[in-house]
């Protein structure tokens, strides 16, 4: 082998690996809008994402080392909390809201059901310090992690000497979360002409466009607005949603429109997990009083009452499940544990 061929071989390998990581990190189909976090999604590196992934699965982020982010956000549930209507944290305590799935976070500007968190970097502080969730402080967590040579090395590799700091800890988690991109549902395959809808799914899509698209806007299947739904306020929770953030009366009981991707994995539904099946959700949309003045007027159009129509609509909703995402080994528990 000549020096020249070695050179070209190495160059090719380098280009491929750069190309692959580039595609892996920021690739999304051309019918997706530009992500809000595009800068971060471009800048983050594979080692940074991997560090964030270790942190996400690490129970040392909680007071008694029992609960990790993944305890409430399981990869096999599109990072929602399976079977729990309200989240379940440290010492078996029950929270007040349903843990949402985590995907396509880079397209969101505000986080949580009420948008209380204004930047993904700052989000992790909420569950970590919540007495019913992980009940720990960032300073303590850093202390615990600094005794682990594995983390000292990883932080140094990604952020340089003295890299194990609070801001870098939060940035690493953000990198992992931004890498959770769901763009390979059957719906996407159809949109990219790689597959075709059945007649039933086509009918379902038409119903969806007419009744649901205004809020659950494709291709993210949410416009991420805060909306006053027809759901009755649960008097045991008295959750006023967006109002608690903005303190404006018109925001009372408004909650963020959730994405409808991966619904088969994220049940139960709604901010308090009150519905367990899609049929229950559709029945709710069809039955409640949408004429109430406090309710978003678009909900008047969200009524699909006919039983066959409901079945067709659900058939379409199921095409939004992304098994490539849910079973992606890169998102799972890293083998370090």
């Amino acid at each position, binding site marked *: 082998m000549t020096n020249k061929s070695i050179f070209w071989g190495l160059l090719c390998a380098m280009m491929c690996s750069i190309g692959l990581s580039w595609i892996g990190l920021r690739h999304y189909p051309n019918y997706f809008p530009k992500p809000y976090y595009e800068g971060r999604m471009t800048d983050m590196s594979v080692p940074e994402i991997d560090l964030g992934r270790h942190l996400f699965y690490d129970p040392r982020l909680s007071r008694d080392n029992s609960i990790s982010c993944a305890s409430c956000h399981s990869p096999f549930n599109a990072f929602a909390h399976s079977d729990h209507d309200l989240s379940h944290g440290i010492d078996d305590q029950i929270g007040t809201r349903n843990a949402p799935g985590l995907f396509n976070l880079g397209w969101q500007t505000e986080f949580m059901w009420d948008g209380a*968190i*204004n930047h993904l970097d700052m989000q992790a502080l909420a569950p970590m310090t919540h007495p019913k969730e992980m009940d720990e402080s960032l300073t303590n967590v850093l202390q615990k992690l600094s005794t682990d040579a594995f983390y000292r090395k990883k932080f140094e590799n990604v952020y340089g000497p003295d890299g194990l700091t609070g801001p870098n800890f939060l940035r690493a988690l953000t990198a992992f979360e931004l890498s959770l991109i769901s763009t390979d549902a059957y719906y996407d395959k159809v949109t990219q002409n790689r597959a075709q809808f059945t007649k039933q799914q086509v009918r379902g899509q038409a119903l969806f466009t007419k009744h649901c698209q205004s809020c659950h806007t494709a291709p993210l299947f949410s416009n991420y607005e805060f909306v006053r739904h027809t759901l009755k306020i649960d008097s045991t929770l008295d959750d006023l949603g967006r109002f608690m953030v903005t303190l404006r009366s018109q925001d009372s009981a408004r909650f963020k429109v959730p994405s409808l991707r991966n619904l088969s994995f994220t049940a139960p539904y709604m901010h308090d997990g009150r519905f367990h099946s899609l049929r229950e959700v559709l029945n709710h949309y069809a039955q409640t009083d949408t004429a109430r003045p406090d309710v978003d007027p678009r909900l008047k159009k969200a009524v699909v009452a006919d039983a066959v129509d409901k079945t067709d609509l659900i058939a379409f909703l199921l095409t939004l499940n992304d098994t490539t995402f849910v079973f992606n080994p890169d998102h799972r528990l890293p083998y370090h544990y």
Partner: protein
Amino acid sequence: MTRKFFHACILFFAAQWAMAQDLNFEFWFNDAPLVLGQTYYVPQFADSVRIEKLAFYISDVVLKDLEKQNATKITDVHLIDLSQQHTLVVERPTLNHEAQLLTFNLGIDSTRQVSGVFSGPLDPTKGMYWTWQSGYINTKLQGTSASSSARNHKFEFHLGGYRMPYNTLQHVALLINKKQPKIMVDLGAFFDTLSINNTNHVMRPGKEALALSQLFALTIKPYDE
């Protein structure tokens, strides 16, 4: 020998001069210097107050020459914490103009508030960040007061919030003494106005946080001897 002494003298005075140029925050409770953990009498309410914690952000600190309209940015963000002596001095670069007007924001502006995590004074491990809802605590003031009806006579004010209409950011402008750029923070004025009996815990953004932030801004004055 004399030469060495002479040099030492020059160095000494140069250092003194340089120090005097930095911005110094001094804390008072009416006529007495404010010391953490010490009890002060509040004549207005026949009350007593002990401060355990006082920390606040100042940002976009600028010195201006009013005649030439020159302005120099002194620092972006600085966290003043009464328990840490070195935070009470804000270093200032040598200016090529006369500085008479000092302006800064008390707190963190809404742009920085929504821009993710920062290192330095804005590092969230500094204890000045709310966790359950995004936002910096612009001012933390904690202690005990005889009249507080809360547990252990505590009072706790975590003042912040950047959303309208309860944006707590306060703009401060002070005419300062060129040679002795000292800034006085007089908590006496705060406790003479606020009845701890009625208000002893303000921990979230809102109307009360805004009112107390405005009140706290009034404790900051130029130093007059």
